[in-house]
């Protein structure tokens, strides 16, 4: 009797793993991939769903997640609530961060309907002609690019993922911290160079025969 019971439990477990697993594997299957090469970041200047012109260049100093998505893309729909959470988590830690979600060639009506339903709390950009899709070499959705505060693509990710996972939150925090450190170092370097230049100028002025 016990073996039948065990067999039945095994059957249930097998069924759950085989048929139920699919719903668990949709998200978290992908992970951020570090971009090792020095890749030029294409221009990103588009109109948002609410009619404002948004330029990626205006977010220097912040980490930016640029996502290419579509309303018919199931993983896009599933992961957007986690993108809202990611923004909240990073705002709590005062990490400078922005999401620009570029819709791939759909109409305003289609996107608005989706937005009313899914309620993304980040900026939706409209690439109605797909020109940016082409320029960014995007061939699938969702396609993600994580850009550091200096405008460089540092990570990419294809597919749906839980954006508010500790791993991703920490990666973005670290990227923001690295950028801030680089900016500070550059600023300190500039100050040192300026001081050195001023000192040299003083010395030159003093040594100048005309003086």
């Amino acid at each position, binding site marked *: 009797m016990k073996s039948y019971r065990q067999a039945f439990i095994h059957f249930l477990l097998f069924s759950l793993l085989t048929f139920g697993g699919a719903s668990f594997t949709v998200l978290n299957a992908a992970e951020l991939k570090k971009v090792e090469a020095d890749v030029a970041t294409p221009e990103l200047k588009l109109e948002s769903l609410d009619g404002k012109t948004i330029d990626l260049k205006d977010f220097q100093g912040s980490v930016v997640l640029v996502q290419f998505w579509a309303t018919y893309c199931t993983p896009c729909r599933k992961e957007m609530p986690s993108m809202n959470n990611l923004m909240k988590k990073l705002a709590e830690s005062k990490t400078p961060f922005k999401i620009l979600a570029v819709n791939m060639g759909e109409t305003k009506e289609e996107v608005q309907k989706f937005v009313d339903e899914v309620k993304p709390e980040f900026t939706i950009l409209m690439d109605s002609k797909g020109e940016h899709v082409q320029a960014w*070499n995007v061939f699938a959705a969702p*396609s993600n690019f994580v850009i550091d505060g200096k405008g460089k693509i540092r990570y990419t990710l294809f597919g749906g993922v839980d954006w508010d996972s500790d791993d991703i939150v920490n990666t973005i925090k670290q990227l923001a911290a690295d950028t801030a450190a680089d900016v500070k170092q550059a600023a300190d370097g500039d100050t040192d160079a300026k001081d050195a230049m001023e000192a040299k100028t003083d010395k030159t002025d003093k040594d100048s025969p005309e003086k």
Partner: protein
Amino acid sequence: MVFTRNVFVKPASVLKLFLIIFATFVLNTASATTADDVKIFSTNDDTEIEVRIFKGDGDQLLLGFACDQGSSMAEEKTAHELAMDGVEVWMPDMLSAYMLPKLRSSLADIPTDGLLKIIEEAQKTGKRVYLIASGPDTELILRVAAEWEQLHAGDDKKKLAGAILMFPRLNKDKPEPGKPPIYQDAVGKTHLPIMVLEGERTPNRWGIGHLTNALKKGGSTVYAKLIPDVRGYFFKRDDPNIPENVVTSQLPGLIKASLFFLGRAH
């Protein structure tokens, strides 16, 4: 243990449950074909391939629609309508022939000799033979076409007339944002005229130009058409929307138009 007691079912009930599942599976998969004829072709290694034949009285023969009984009803209906309109359709069941599961990974395991044999048989009808496949199955027909051309180089009588690739999924690996796709080895190896049909509501539409260029590398004339308002796999979906239902019902016309374009390439 309390949990196991609560869910415990008598062995007889377990057996009954299995029988119900099995019966449902059998009923689902054993739906009768509407084909006019079913032929079995044997390859040199005695693999038997079942081919459903929808007879048409015209001079065009469409070979493909990788299929399996029971889950290809839209294809069968389309084949039936094409046959009524003069286009003969042959639908080989490649996965069953090689006892492969219906998985994307199975496609790479399908040897070409079976399809080469079927092409040979199809050409004996004297009709112009076109190939058709959808999704990842398109890799198989490109592979077979390239091999056929190599085997019969210079023999005009053995020329295939063209291929229709419906929402082809020919990437070798997962897409990588920021990088152009790397295609399966079969891409760009044939000089067969090709028609690519892609849904407008799929991200793959943005790669259609890139794929077209890759296909042209073999010397093919390639046409590419976007079908408005439909997603990829539109005729195989469990959740079709209104445009997808409409286009599925118009599939024979879409294929006939594709054959017309391919005919112009010669």
